[in-house]
Every structure is written in structure tokens, then in C-alpha cells.
């Protein structure tokens, strides 16, 4: 497969996944904002969300004070914010368009239709009237995109690079979501409120029902961390993402990729054989920060090894 083609596929999947994760975070915050809480706490929550995405500065430059409406606007419709849903879905579609011949007609049509519908929905004011329904729609379009890929594409490198994009992005997002919540809880001791934090966090990764099923017990931060980091059967956990990264890397292996595979395998093994007690003892924040760095490095290495190789 052409390197450029693989690059477009990788980023198409990454941007789609990023749009989904942004929608997930926003939705949870919108839901939490409905709970009785001080205005200060609400602002804290929105600020934390900007922090997850490393967008605090960009937001401040544009809006200054934190208000729900402005944050949502910034994270959904602002074309200048590269992580906004509109920027992500536009970029996903542009990447798809560049390689539409490589995609099945169905995959291309889902990307194109998502893009066309997005504009219609935003023009129609759905975001204001019913933000949750809008976020739900973004999530479903992402589900559809992954589903139609698995349902119609030949299982070749094209799919491998799309999966790599999806799971590197998802690993990054899950780690960020987990990290910010832990940050908060360390400073805030109210256990009652904690429950809502953790419940919201779990919901943002579709993990609330899974948590109950797995632990059949009250929600504790340590178990949430374990679920989202070390459980291979939790589809958005770090380990589940690394499973996919390692598998897909092996499929596309080339003459120069062995070091990338080694690093991915090492990270995978640490999660697979890791224990949450050890992680907590070392410090969750430190562990997650390091994980984010290693994921970032893996993304760069994938680019270097496969997507933009040097001439000849």
C-alpha cells in the first residue's frame, strides 16, 4: 500500500475517533452540569475538560471566562480549534476523500454523509436545543464508521492502518480522561461528590454498566483505574487499545519497524502483567503521564516507519 494512502487512512480513523471522544467528554459534562452544584464547581469541571485536551490557552485567548455555552461552541463548532468536532470530522472526510478509491463505497459514503449531515445539524441549531442528542449522533456516526469498515473492507493493510489510528487515539483519550479526574479527586475530598465524578467518568467511556457487571460493588477510584487501564475485556481500556496496536503493527511489519514493535510490545506487556496496587503506589498521574508520552512516541514512530518514509 502507498505510504501516503496509509497515512490518510490512519488519520481518517484517528480524527473520527477523536470526534467521538470529544463528544463523549462534552456529553458527560453536560449531564453532570444538571446535578446540583456550585457555579464554581461547574466552571471547574469545564476547565478540567479543556485541560484534558490541552486547549486551555487556546480557549482563553478566544473567550476568557469559562461558560458552558462557550466551551461547547469552542469544542464543537470552532474550525480554528483542531480538536473541535467540526474540525475533526472535516479532516476525517478530507482524508477519506484523498483515498476514496481505497475505501469501499460504503465506508466513503459514511464519511461523506457524516460530514454533510454535520453541517445541516449545526445550521439547524440542534446543538443548542438538544446537545445530548447531537453528541449521541456523533458517537453513532463513529460507531458506524468503524462498523462499516469491519463489515465491508478487505482485511488488509488498509484496515490495519485504520485500526492503528483508532486505537492510538483512543488510548490517548482514555488516559487523559482518567488522569484529569484523578487530579480533581486528589484535591476534593467529598466522597459523596466523588461518586458522581466516577460515575460520570465511567459513562463517558460507556463503562458504567460494565463496572457493575465486573465488580458488583460500589464505585472506588482504584477499581475505575483498574477497569480503564488493565482490563483487556473493557473495549476502551488502555490494555484493550494496546492489544489492537500490537496486533495491527505485527500485520504491517516492515524492514525498519522492529524497534517500534518492541516498544509497543513492552508497553503492552506492562499493562497486561501490571497490578493496580503497584500503579497507585507509584502514582497514577505519573504513570499516565508517562503512558501518554509513550503513546505519542509510538504515533511518531508509526509515521516514520510506514507513512512518510524517506526517499528510496
Amino acid at each position, binding site marked *: 500500500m502507498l505510504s*501516503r*494512502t496509509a497515512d490518510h487512512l490512519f488519520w481518517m480513523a484517528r480524527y473520527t475517533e477523536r470526534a467521538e471522544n470529544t463528544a463523549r467528554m462534552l456529553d458527560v459534562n453536560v449531564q453532570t452540569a444538571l446535578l446540583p452544584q456550585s457555579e464554581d464547581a461547574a466552571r471547574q469541571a469545564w476547565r478540567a475538560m479543556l485541560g484534558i485536551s490541552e486547549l486551555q490557552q487556546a480557549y482563553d485567548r478566544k473567550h476568557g471566562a469559562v461558560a458552558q455555552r462557550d466551551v461547547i461552541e469552542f469544542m464543537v463548532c470552532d474550525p480554528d480549534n483542531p480538536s473541535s468536532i467540526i474540525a475533526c470530522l472535516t479532516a476525517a472526510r478530507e482524508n477519506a476523500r484523498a483515498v*476514496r478509491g481505497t475505501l469501499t463505497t460504503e465506508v*466513503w459514503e459514511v464519511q461523506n454523509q457524516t460530514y*454533510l449531515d454535520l453541517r445541516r445539524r449545526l445550521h439547524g441549531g440542534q446543538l443548542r436545543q438538544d446537545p445530548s442528542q447531537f453528541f449521541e449522533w456523533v458517537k453513532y456516526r463513529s460507531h458506524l464508521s468503524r462498523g462499516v469498515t469491519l463489515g465491508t473492507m478487505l482485511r488488509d*493493510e488498509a484496515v490495519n492502518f485504520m485500526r492503528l489510528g483508532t486505537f492510538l487515539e483512543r488510548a490517548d483519550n482514555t488516559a487523559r480522561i482518567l488522569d484529569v479526574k484523578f487530579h480533581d479527586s486528589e484535591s476534593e475530598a467529598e466522597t459523596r461528590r466523588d461518586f458522581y465524578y466516577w460515575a460520570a467518568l465511567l459513562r463517558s467511556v460507556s463503562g458504567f454498566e460494565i463496572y457493575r457487571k465486573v465488580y458488583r460493588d460500589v464505585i472506588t477510584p482504584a477499581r475505575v483505574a483498574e477497569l480503564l487501564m488493565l482490563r483487556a475485556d473493557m473495549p476502551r481500556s488502555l490494555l484493550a487499545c494496546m492489544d489492537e496496536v500490537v496486533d495491527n503493527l505485527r500485520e504491517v511489519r516492515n*524492514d525498519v519497524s522492529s524497534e517500534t514493535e518492541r516498544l509497543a510490545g513492552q508497553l503492552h506487556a506492562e499493562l497486561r502483567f501490571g497490578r493496580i496496587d503497584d500503579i497507585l503506589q507509584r502514582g497514577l498521574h505519573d504513570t499516565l503521564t508517562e503512558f501518554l508520552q509513550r503513546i505519542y512516541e509510538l504515533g511518531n514512530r508509526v509515521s516514520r516507519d510506514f507513512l512518510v*518514509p524517506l526517499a528510496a
Partner: protein
Amino acid sequence: MMADGAVRPHYRAFAEWLAQQTHDAIERKRAEADLAFRRVGITFAVYGDNAGTERLIPFDMIPRIIPAHEWALLQRGLEQRVRALNMFIDDIYHEQHIIRAGVVPAEQIYRNAQYRPEMQGIRVASDIYAHIAGIDIVRAGAGEFYVLEDNLRVPSGVSYMLEDRKMMMRLYPELFASHKVAPVEHYPDLLLDNLRSVAPVGVIDPTVVVMTPGMYNSAYFEHAFLAQQMGVELVEGKDLFVNNNAVWMRTTRGPRRVDVIYRRLDDDFLDPLAFRADSALGVPGLLSVYRAGRVTLANAIGTGVADDKSIYPYVPAIIRFYLSEEPVLNNVPTYQCRHRNELDYTLANLAQLVVKEVHGAGGYGMLVGPAASKQEVEDFRARLLARPDVYIAQPTLALSNCPTFVENGVAPRHIDLRPFVLSGKTISMVPGGLTRVALREGSLVVNSSQGGGTKDTWVLEQ
């Protein structure tokens, strides 16, 4: 329709069906077609515009129908014409018998901007130059076909031919049950077979690619479509490089040799070392590999020398010279303004003639006398006098019409036809082509850049 207003026999079944459709029903189907075309993204990009302003080419739901015997004649004429044109290009770049025989003046070759001295003496696989030709045809009377233009460089539109058929089958399956319409869907298969057949000598299992200038090119949809339908890579210049006297593409598993390039960009942009140095679309060194016969370009470099409007008047003579046959298809009578007496005739009859720039394309830089105002005619007269050598003039034919769905209902509109002729070890084509229709009343210009639309083209099997 015939001149007396009666329906031509091969349209009868369709006309009966059409009479039973309400305007609203057709309007609904048209909206459905628009939506589907947009979802599939069958749009053409407009240079400089952002993604939000991709345009749809209007699709007309009333097919153009060609009876079997007319197609048989057309096919014979197209094969003959393309065969002769390929022999002409080969001759031009080698022995030049035709110039020495005095059939085509040497100046028409050497002063032609499309003539490529770099091609002189180069052998290309199977001596084929125009692997894909899109010949524009108009019909003026029963069985009377005229060639308007031979497009031998990078003719486009074949994707619309295929998508229009798909759309018609989806919207009106019942029509295909009542008409025996010859299929065209195997075109990509013919194309792939054709491209593989012209691989460099000695290559057993050639790697074929489609080369595009990129996603902002107006025909990008077609490039991607053809690559996908053939199952080959769609490459841009930056995906290719030259090394060790071969062309390679950059893949995730390292360099891979490329043997046949169906290139959809003009000669000028192919190789910055040989042609335009400022082109970022090409591949440095490509020409050197090509000259060594180690890669095939389709179409070959320098084919434009034969599809120019200045060569067009000679094509009947070209056919007679190489094939010793009479041309099956007519040329439109053409006055070359570079000849004094033909210029005089043109100037005296401007209001009745169509005057075209020799190197013009896309319906720009032309005068349609009967449709022009007095002022426009006079303005053009001045241009013509200033540079008579770059203009030709042709009478406006009584072009055939085809019933077309317009705002007020069904009305006749002018059409032309672009069949796609493939040349490799053999000549092949699918029955039909792209029918373009001038949507504006009275207009003779069918180019999409001038508001033209397309129709499905039906060649009946009996």
C-alpha cells in the same frame, strides 16, 4: 425526434412510458438522484474553492437512445479513426512519411505547441500512443455522424457514463426490463486489460497505477473511481520516484516497481527535469525512464499533436493515407483561417459560423455566430484579424436534439456523444459513451464548465 415532430422508432417504447409519468414523479426522482450523487460525492471540484462548494453536474433522466445499426456504424468509424490517428502519431515521431508525401504540411507539426521533440525516435510499447481516446461526436441526420473533436490526451467523463447508468438502473429498473440496453459496466475491466497489454517489453505481470494531480483536480472523482474499479493504486507525483532507471512507488513495505502509468495530468507537468521546472505534480527523471522503454505512459507523451484543431481538418486525409480506406465518420467542414481565402469566407459569414481557437478547450475562446449579438460578432472579427492563424471556423450543423427534462417539462436540447476508444494490442470500447446535453435553450455548448449536463446513453442491442 424527427424533423416532422414524429417520435423516432427506437424512442417509441420510451415515449409511451414517459407519457404515463407525471411531472411531479419525475421531479421526485430527480431530487432522489441529486441526493444520491451528492452522497456518493460525484462532484467536480472547482479550483480554489473550499470543500463546501463542490458542484454537481446536472443529470438528466431522459436517456439518449441509439439504435443498434447506428452504433455499429459508429463503432466501425471510431475504430478506423483511432487506428489511423495512432499510426499518424507514430509516423510523426519517426519516419514522417506523411509529411514527405505532402499530405500534412510540416509546419502544422513543428509549429504545433503539442508537438514534443523529446518523443522523436522513441519506441513505445506496441506503437500505441493514444491508449484512451474520447472522440466527440454529433449526429446531424439519420446515420450521419460528425466528429467534432478527437481528445487524445487525458479525456475525462467515463465515470459519468458509468454512474449515470447505475443511477438510471436504480431509479427506473422497469425501463431496463422493457429495453434491451447494451451494458457498459465492464469498462474498467477493458481498461485494465488494455493497460496491461501495453506494458514495457518483457514485463510479465505489470503493476499498473493511475496517476492524478491530486484531490483538488476537477476530475479527481474520476481518477479515484477508475483506480478503485480497476483495483490499482491511485498515485500522485510525490508517491513516485525514479531510481536505477526504473519508476518506483513508496509503499509501507518499501519501494515497489511501477510498469504502466495511466496518467491523468498533462505532458507539461509530468517531469520537472524535462518539462515545466515549477511543476510539483510530476516525477523528476520520469522522462528518462520512459525514453529507455522501462515504463509505459498512457496516453503517451506528445499525443496532443494529433488532436489539435489545426490537425483536425487533415484527419480524413490521414485515414486515407494510412489505411487506404474512405473515412466512415465525417469531419465537420472546417475553414482554416490561416489560409487567406478561407479567412475571407469566414469573415464574410461570421454570423452563421462557429469560430474556435485552435488550442482552446472547455468552450472558452469561441464564437457561436448564430447565438451572438452584433457587437460580439464585431469584437470577434477584430480578434480574428489580429491572429487568423489560431482560428478555425465551422458551420453550425443542424445538431440532433434529445428530449430533456427541464423546468417546464420535457423539451428538446442539443446533445453530443463522447465514446471512449481503448487501443492496445487490439481496439475495444463499450457500446455507448458519455452524452452531454446543453441545458440552456438553443445553446450548442455542452461543456460542464458552461452549464452542460449529462444523460445516460443507451445503445439498443437490436
